[in-house]
């Protein structure tokens, strides 16, 4: 089982390194690329958790759809090869202070508190059929209502995006 | 619902009727009708009141009626009048009446002006007829808020500044009041807001000790208590004529009336204990206002400071806590209301002609506008306490009453207050001499026209009231005195 562990640590390393690089990069297009790596690594985590469907969605929606949007937006708004002006040092320092404070704070809490016995249940992959019926069902622990809400929201979102972005 | 409520309803009806008025003539007609009805009503009330008393009805408040308004806090709309309120209602009616005539040519927006004017007056009437603490407070607020717009829109000079200052300071006062009203409600048992009921109970002395200054100061702000008087010079100087009249004539009386009706009546022990602090302040007011008036050059400022001095005398007399002085205080409220309204009316009329209020730029007006000139002299004489005019009776009642208190502080302050009559003479005669007598300063003034009929109506009504009060004071002082007796009785019992 070592292989799983190794993969996990590799993914963790990738996420850590690339997320930090993503937020620090001077070029937007690089940031977007690093973000892509982060998202893909996350997808890898889902795979480790045996959520294959989630993995697929993550790759398709995030890494596929959203990233394409980002890249388009970046290409539309940025001149290629030009760095962004660095932000004021004070702002960055303050942001680092706050986020590291939050990190430490939450880390301590997790370190001290998460000691519950848990089981790792292996190989319990959720069949897509079950996912589909749960998503469409109306009973307890079934999700037709959010599903519909999301669908309407997506519609609204499409309309809204078109309305906002179109030329006047 | 009894007939006292008509005092509140008539202004509201007038207000409603004004909404349909189309031109200035109709507006004036409606406003004058409303004001006349109120004047008649106050006459009827006086007659009924005296009649009822003559028939031997000696309950504290006559024409009582209650209507539940908000049960959880025991808020009632309860009305009732005694001699003091009747006197105040007469005063309000007279000043409303003359105020309408004094603003016959108000510009711009006559309709809106009268709308606010009548709304304000309904608040004032409400305040005087109600005997429920909360309703009292509500009507008090109704009377204050329109002032902001009336000064801010129709005023002159630094009107926005003055309106803001006046409203903020008076609001500050009413914040103290709200606090004290809630305190009184809570400490008197928390089940009634009715003044008469609360008076029957005993508010613990510890509570009185801080509720009394709150109440007194809250009302004192409106009564131009030193050092909370500074809204008065600016406010009066900027306000339009009728508003100055109503404000100095009636609204400042709300302070005195409230201090007497709420602070002294409900908290006699604390009144005895803390009277000396406020006595000193009011003593300062009296003399300080007079001295300040001596060097002012703006007619309205002179009058505003003189109001500080005279209203200081009202609070001063109330704090003497004896029957004679308190009667004098109420008389002084009446007298000051009438004469200061007359003053402001005349100043407005003179200003409307000369377009200046600086006494250095006027002179010899007596020859050009004799009617206004003579009226101004009469107002001045009333103000400096000439026998036969209202000021004298009021001031003498106060002085004699105050002198009956044998404490050293009271003695000294009484003598200090008495000296104000000389200083008053100094500044009144200075103004009269400067603007009315002597040579005409500005050749353009030579062609000014004398008072029109509506101005005459307004001025003559006030003069008649002043002379009537000053030469036949007995009936009204009796009426007031009889109503003050129970309050003084309670005060004496608290000793």
């Amino acid at each position, binding site marked *: 089982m070592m292989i799983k562990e190794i993969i996990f640590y590799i993914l963790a390393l990738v996420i850590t390194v690339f997320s930090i690089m993503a937020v620090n990069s001077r070029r937007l297009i690089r940031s977007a690329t690093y973000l892509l790596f982060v*998202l893909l690594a996350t997808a890898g*985590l889902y795979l480790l958790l045996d959520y294959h469907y989630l993995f697929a969605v993550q790759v398709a929606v995030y890494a596929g759809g*959203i990233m394409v949007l980002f890249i388009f937006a970046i290409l539309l708004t940025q001149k290629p090869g030009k760095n962004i002006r660095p932000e004021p040092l004070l702002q960055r320092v303050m942001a680092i202070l706050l986020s590291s404070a939050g990190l430490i704070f939450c880390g301590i809490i997790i370190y001290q508190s998460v000691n519950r016995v848990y089981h*790792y249940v292996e190989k319990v992959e959720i069949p897509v059929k079950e996912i589909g019926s749960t998503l469409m069902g109306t009973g307890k*622990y079934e999700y037709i209502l959010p599903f519909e809400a*999301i669908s309407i929201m997506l519609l609204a979102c499409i309309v809204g995006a078109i309305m906002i972005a179109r030329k006047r | 619902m009894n007939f006292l409520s008509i005092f509140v309803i008539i202004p509201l009806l007038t207000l409603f009727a004004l909404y349909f008025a189309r031109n200035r003539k109709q507006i004036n007609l409606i406003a004058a009708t409303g004001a006349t009805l109120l004047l008649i009503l106050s006459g009827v009330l006086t007659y009924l009141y005296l009649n009822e008393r003559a028939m031997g009805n000696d309950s504290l408040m006559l024409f009582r009626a209650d209507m539940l308004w908000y049960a959880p806090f025991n808020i009632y709309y309860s009305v009732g009048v005694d001699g003091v309120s009747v006197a105040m209602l007469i005063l309000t009616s007279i000043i409303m009446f003359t105020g309408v005539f004094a603003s016959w040519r108000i510009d711009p927006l006559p309709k809106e002006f009268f709308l606010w004017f009548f709304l304000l007056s309904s608040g004032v009437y409400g305040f005087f007829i109600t005997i429920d603490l909360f309703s009292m407070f509500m009507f008090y607020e109704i009377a204050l808020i329109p002032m902001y717009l009336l000064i801010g829109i129709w005023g002159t000079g630094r009107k926005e*500044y003055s309106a803001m200052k006046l409203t903020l300071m008076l609001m500050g006062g009413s914040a103290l009041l709200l606090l004290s009203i809630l305190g009184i409600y809570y400490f008197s048992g928390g089940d009634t807001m009715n003044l008469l009921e609360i008076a029957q109970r005993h508010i613990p002395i510890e509570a009185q000790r801080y509720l009394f200054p709150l109440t007194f100061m809250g009302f004192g702000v409106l009564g131009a208590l030193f050092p909370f008087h500074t809204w008065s010079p600016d406010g009066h100087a900027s306000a339009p004529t009728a508003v100055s009249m109503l404000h100095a004539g009636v609204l400042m009386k709300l302070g005195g009336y409230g201090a007497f009706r709420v602070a002294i009546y409900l908290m006699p022990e604390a009144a005895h204990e803390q009277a000396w602090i406020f006595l000193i302040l009011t003593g300062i007011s009296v003399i300080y206002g007079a001295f300040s008036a001596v060097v002012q050059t703006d007619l309205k400022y002179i009058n505003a400071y003189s109001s500080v001095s005279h209203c200081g005398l009202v609070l001063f007399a109330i704090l003497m806590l004896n029957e004679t002085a308190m009667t004098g205080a109420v008389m002084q409220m009446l007298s000051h209301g009438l004469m200061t309204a007359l003053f402001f009316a005349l100043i407005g009329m003179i200003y409307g002609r000369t377009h200046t209020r600086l006494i250095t730029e006027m002179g010899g007006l007596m020859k050009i506008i004799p009617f206004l000139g003579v009226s101004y002299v009469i107002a001045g004489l009333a103000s400096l306490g000439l026998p036969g005019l209202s000021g004298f009776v009021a001031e003498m009642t106060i002085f004699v009453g105050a002198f009956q208190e044998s404490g050293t502080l009271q003695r000294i302050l009484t003598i200090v207050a008495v000296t104000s009559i000389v200083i008053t003479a100094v500044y009144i005669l200075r103004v009269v001499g400067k603007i009315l007598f002597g040579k005409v300063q500005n050749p353009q003034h030579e062609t000014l026209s004398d008072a029109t009929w509506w101005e005459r109506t307004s001025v003559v009504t006030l003069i008649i009231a002043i002379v009537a009060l000053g030469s036949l004071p007995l009936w009204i002082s009796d009426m007031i005195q009889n109503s003050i007796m129970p309050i003084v009785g309670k005060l004496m019992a608290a000793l």
Partner: protein
Amino acid sequence: MGAIFDNFGSGVIPLEGYIFISLIMFFTGIYGFLSRKSLLMILISIEMILNSADINFAAFNRYLYPDQMEGFFFALFTIAISACETAVAIAIVINIYRNLNNVEVDSLQELQEPESTETKTEI
């Protein structure tokens, strides 16, 4: 975190591992959100924050309540919503770019009270 070291090499990936990764991602996103000026960078940071939440949902579901699917679906919906959000946000960004010719967050001042004009009214 002790669990990570205890279980190191045992082949079992502890829950804390996932939580810590998501934690790092979350605060990196926060950092990006607070420190960057570009609207697109802010958006990228937001994506990271949302993503870190997704990881938690999935991990908790798998580790604590493996028989149920709440976390799973929540992550699913979050992904959908973040997609919507990104689409709209990017539309807005492009619109802003058209109007202002840049995408810096500080240049959005239309609704802000002007700072220099201190209208000190005398009272």
